[in-house]
């Protein structure tokens, strides 16, 4: 039984890290119709910047805040000067963001080198609690909590606030929103930055668990894209459910089906897409 609980919690931890990444990816797609592949770089860059700060003695929480701001600034520059130039030209955007992920990856490699790095667990969360005979680190529980808090905030933001309403409307009909006098460009940028900030938070939080190493952005991006496809493009709720599903499958797959554990998430993706081609929460608009 304790094995079951510990594995479920580990799965949720990984799932929540993926959710922070995938939700932004999904929202940005929903509004802007961009599959922003450089979203993986935001995750990577966030964790490396936080590492740079923490390794110089900065407090973890301050580093979390500052690196999120750094990534948001980076995202702003990318959006303003590069991505927005290709608005409406989807194929170019995908290629551009694919190029960016390599460029940013190389820059981080150049600055921080190729060695494995990791951020120490903040001391306040650096202990485990016992689940009968096993134990589970508090820090991972904290990550799960952050994921759930983000999901609740997203829900509140989307359904209860005016800005959320505008964004929802924008997803449905961009041109009409523009015609009604809303500043579409501003909304775009805001949502893009919000997504980047979520990815950065995910990146920093993953620092003590997964560590940082070159090409990690691809690993996390592939899993996030799977989640986005399972959940349905453009829906953060789908990303939430998808992330939980993938996290749990990853965790239990490693124990019960070790030989195919790597493939398992793709198998699940294929099965979901076979029966629901738009993903679990994807909407088919008329």
């Amino acid at each position: 039984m304790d094995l079951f609980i510990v594995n479920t919690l580990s799965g949720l931890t990984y799932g929540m890290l993926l959710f922070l990444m995938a939700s932004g990816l999904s929202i940005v797609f929903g509004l802007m119709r961009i599959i922003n592949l450089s979203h993986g770089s935001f995750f990577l860059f966030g964790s490396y910047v936080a590492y740079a700060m923490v390794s110089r003695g900065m407090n973890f929480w301050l580093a979390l805040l500052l690196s999120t701001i750094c990534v948001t600034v980076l995202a702003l520059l990318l959006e303003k000067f590069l991505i927005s130039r290709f608005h409406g030209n989807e194929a170019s955007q995908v290629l551009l963001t694919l190029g960016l992920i390599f460029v940013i990856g190389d820059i981080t490699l150049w600055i921080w080198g190729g060695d494995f790095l990791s951020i120490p667990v903040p001391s306040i969360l650096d202990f485990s609690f016992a689940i009968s005979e096993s134990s589970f680190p508090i820090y991972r529980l904290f990550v799960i909590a952050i994921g759930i808090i983000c999901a609740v905030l997203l829900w509140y933001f989307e359904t209860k606030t005016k800005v959320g309403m505008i964004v929802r409307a924008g997803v449905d009909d961009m041109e009409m929103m523009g015609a009604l006098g809303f500043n579409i460009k501003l909304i775009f940028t805001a949502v893009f930055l919000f997504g980047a900030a979520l990815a950065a938070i995910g990146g920093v939080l993953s620092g003590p668990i997964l560590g940082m190493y070159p090409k990690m952005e691809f690993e996390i991006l592939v899993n996030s894209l799977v989640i986005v496809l399972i959940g349905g493009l453009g829906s953060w709720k789908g990303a939430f459910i998808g992330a939980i599903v993938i996290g749990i499958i990853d965790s239990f797959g490693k124990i019960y089906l070790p030989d195919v554990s790597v493939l398992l998430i793709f198998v699940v993706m294929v099965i979901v897409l076979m029966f629901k081609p738009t993903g679990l929460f994807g909407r088919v608009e008329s």
Partner: protein
Amino acid sequence: MKKTAVKFFQILAVFSLLFLAACSGSAIDSSTKDDSRVSEGDSKDPVKLGFILSLTGNFASMGTPVKEGIELYFEENPEIDGRKVELIFEDDAGDPQAALRKYEQLTLNQGVNIVGGGTVGSIALALRDKVDADKKVPLINVVGSTDVMSWEKKSDYVWRTSFSAWQYASISGKFTAEGVGGNAVIIASDYVAGHEIVTDFIPGFEEGGGKVSDIVWAPLGTSDFSSYLTQIDNAKPEAVFMFIPGADGSRFIKQYQEFGLQDKYTLVEGGSLLNAPFNIKAVGNAVVGGKMITNYFPELENEVNEKFVKAYQAKFNKIPDNYVVNGYDTGKLISQVVKEAGSLDGEKLVSVLKKGLTIDSPRGPIKMDPVTHTLIQNMYVIEGKETNGEITFELIKTYENIEMPKENVGYKKY
């Protein structure tokens, strides 16, 4: 219109996914050429040495220190027997095919006298086949640890200055049974070297009275080991033997500590991954209490090593690991062989190697075994300690003059 747009994006997303999945696995770094040459002398023919190392890509953390070791040795000894030494470094980026191309380039265009390289087993084997077929220049294998290089794949022209999987793993097994406990869980990376290490570990461990309660295979590139950790915790072993190379290994040890297993079960690591400086930096006090089997560690007390560590620190401003020593010893071996042969002819060089040479290495005295073409060397068991926030390694046991079996021992494969 909208519906088709969404469809289009889904297809696009699936394609990008496939593309990324393909990319993320393989090394996509472009290879950078790194030539450093020493100017030619004119009294006698210069000694041209070509090294094919993985200087970028997944295995750069092994190839780069080897290069540093070689550079250090030839900076200290720029001449062999009055001949200038010319070093040429080529990068294979972890790809055996690229290594073969570089080999052609070095032997045909550059006319090197001796080749060094083989940062991982697959590259070492690919080079070995080519060198053995050509029978022109000797190959000094610097890292590749696969056992068959000493047995079926032994070649007159191929000699290794590193170590074999058997040397590490059988001693790891022996030590675990003697020094830690009779009940162990093994966790290893699911690839060729991982299987080889496990195959060599188990007989040594069982001979000492040990019993393996579980073997866990983790795919290369595993980032979250928590499921495996609960599996280990469930088996309640006395010892956990791990062979997980590179960044995966660092992550595993961090998480091992995080889940509280560090205090419960003794970790034994056979593969000399933990005492590498970059790993210690990353895992910090997670190595405390862990036992590691290695052929070199920087705190080793002997005169050669003290000088070596100082020289390396002065040049590179960091602490050397066993890969640096492999490179350094490669330089020393080559220099002795050329000196004794008095010639750069491949056949003459090989005949000197066949006599068996003894070298004073930072890892202690080592001897090239003319039968197995692998060094006879000491294996050290070291333990991670923390004093005043500094991580150090303390020698707890030495296994002296570990010699490869002369022929394939034919263990059961795992």
